[in-house]
């Protein structure tokens, strides 16, 4: 039943002299939701961005759905159409209205007809509860609405896996729930998801597996209840204490 969908082995990534990822191994099964948590600078966003090769790894192997993305001969553009990505800053195309944001890649990349791309777009807008915003410009939407449009845009390519890079970190607190609700619904529908997040509640309730990263390594991984509820590693405990109960801790030591 459990079939490995994303497999990362020996992944290393440096920015100049700064080694951000140091030998990462990670497996994600089809239909699983994996939440990646950890302090800022731990490399979690970089790891996620390596999965669709927005960052070029220095070493290691990344296989998504039996396609080896790190193979130099791979058609990365075609592979990316099957890997949806949602960014912290939404990154909606600011010169296009919502509908065009959802159809442009369907038309230009998947070569779908105008009619079909429109139908797919409207269906996905409905999934995120924003059907009535089809003709709005991104700047007219709240942050939460923009992020839901961004999710619908990624879904319109019919991806096999979705990558979420701190999708709620740029949102006002009262808008976070809408976006997490959409993500939970996606998870319930069986989408394979990798989520970099600081929302521990979401990770605890939705994730099949939680990964704690620090200093470019995966420090601890396992079922959400174990990693968040009963962490084994000192660094995980320290991080969770700071995140879950921030007022009872002094400023962190500079690294």
């Amino acid at each position, binding site marked *: 039943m459990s079939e490995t969908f994303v497999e990362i082995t020996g992944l290393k990534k440096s920015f100049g002299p700064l080694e951000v990822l140091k030998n990462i191994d990670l497996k994600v099964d089809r239909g699983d939701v994996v939440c990646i948590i950890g302090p800022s600078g731990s490399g979690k966003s970089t790891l996620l961005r390596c999965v669709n090769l927005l960052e070029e790894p220095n070493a290691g192997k990344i296989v998504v759905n039996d396609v080896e993305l790190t193979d130099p001969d791979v058609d990365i553009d075609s592979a990316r159409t099957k890997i949806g990505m949602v960014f912290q800053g939404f990154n909606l*195309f*600011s010169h296009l209205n919502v509908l065009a944001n959802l159809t442009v890649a369907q038309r*230009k990349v998947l070569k779908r007809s105008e009619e079909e791309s429109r139908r797919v777009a409207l269906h996905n807008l409905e999934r995120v509860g924003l059907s009535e915003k089809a003709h709005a410009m991104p700047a007219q939407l709240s942050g939460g609405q923009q992020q839901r449009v961004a999710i619908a845009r*990624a879904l319109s390519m019919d991806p096999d896996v979705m990558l979420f890079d701190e999708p709620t970190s740029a949102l006002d607190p009262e808008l976070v729930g809408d976006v997490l609700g959409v993500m939970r619904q996606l998870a319930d529908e069986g989408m394979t998801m990798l989520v970099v997040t600081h929302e521990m509640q979401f990770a605890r309730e939705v994730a099949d597996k939680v990964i704690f990263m620090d200093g470019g390594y995966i420090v601890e991984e396992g079922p959400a209840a174990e990693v968040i509820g009963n962490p084994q590693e000192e660094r995980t405990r320290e991080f969770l204490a700071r995140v879950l109960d921030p007022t009872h801790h002094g400023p962190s030591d500079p690294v």
Partner: protein
Amino acid sequence: MAVSKRKRAEYIRYAQYGLLIVIALVVAFLADWGQIRAAFFNVDIAKSMFPSVITVALKNTIIYTALGFAFGLALGLVLALMKLSSVAPYRWIATVYIEFFRGVPALLVFIGIYYGVPIAFQMQFPPLTTVMLALGGVGAAYMAETIRAGIQAVPKGQVEAARSLGMSQGRAMITIVIPQAFRIILPPLTNELILLTKDSSLIYILGLFREQYELTKFGRETLSRSPSLTPILIAGLCYLIITLPLGYLSRYLERRGTGGARKKVSA
């Protein structure tokens, strides 16, 4: 003695106004208004310039400028992309072109193209083509830098989003980046158009026929036949018919903003 700061600022302002009025009065008193009137406001000569100043000269100025701008924009876009290319020789070529044509007076470029190209290639371009190459060639150098700045001003996250949807580098550039870049640079681009309008006066050097005259050439030609500077004034006013609305448009576009700004994305 006890003058408040605000009062003192007010007095200084009055003093400045007073000085301006004095200067204006002195200039007005010294100038010979009869001579000025005779030189610049000869109604008969002004009347004799119509309608051809509009139907020929103004029309040609607009045509030449439009041709030069269209060619310059296309070449400028190519140069901007070359300048941003990862291929070093492309960057070198673009840099040499831009630095040369920005640094050399437009008049010299026009002379070079008009006399040089026929000698070099043993062929004579039709006048409109020469105008287009000359004006556009100079305009492209300026516009390339503007376009490059515009492309670089598009947030990086826009390209990342496009690439994550499976768009190739080129596709993302054409579909996402360039349309946004042009929104950002519309005001400065309008200013380039104004500059080009005035540069079109330099193509008198190309030795045009009467029906090819643009405003400056037309004004100078009329000037040579009349004992008055009126033609120059009329030609100047005609330029303003073009440039004032463009200037207004540029300021309007700038005020309206571009809507291209987006929150920066952190890693």
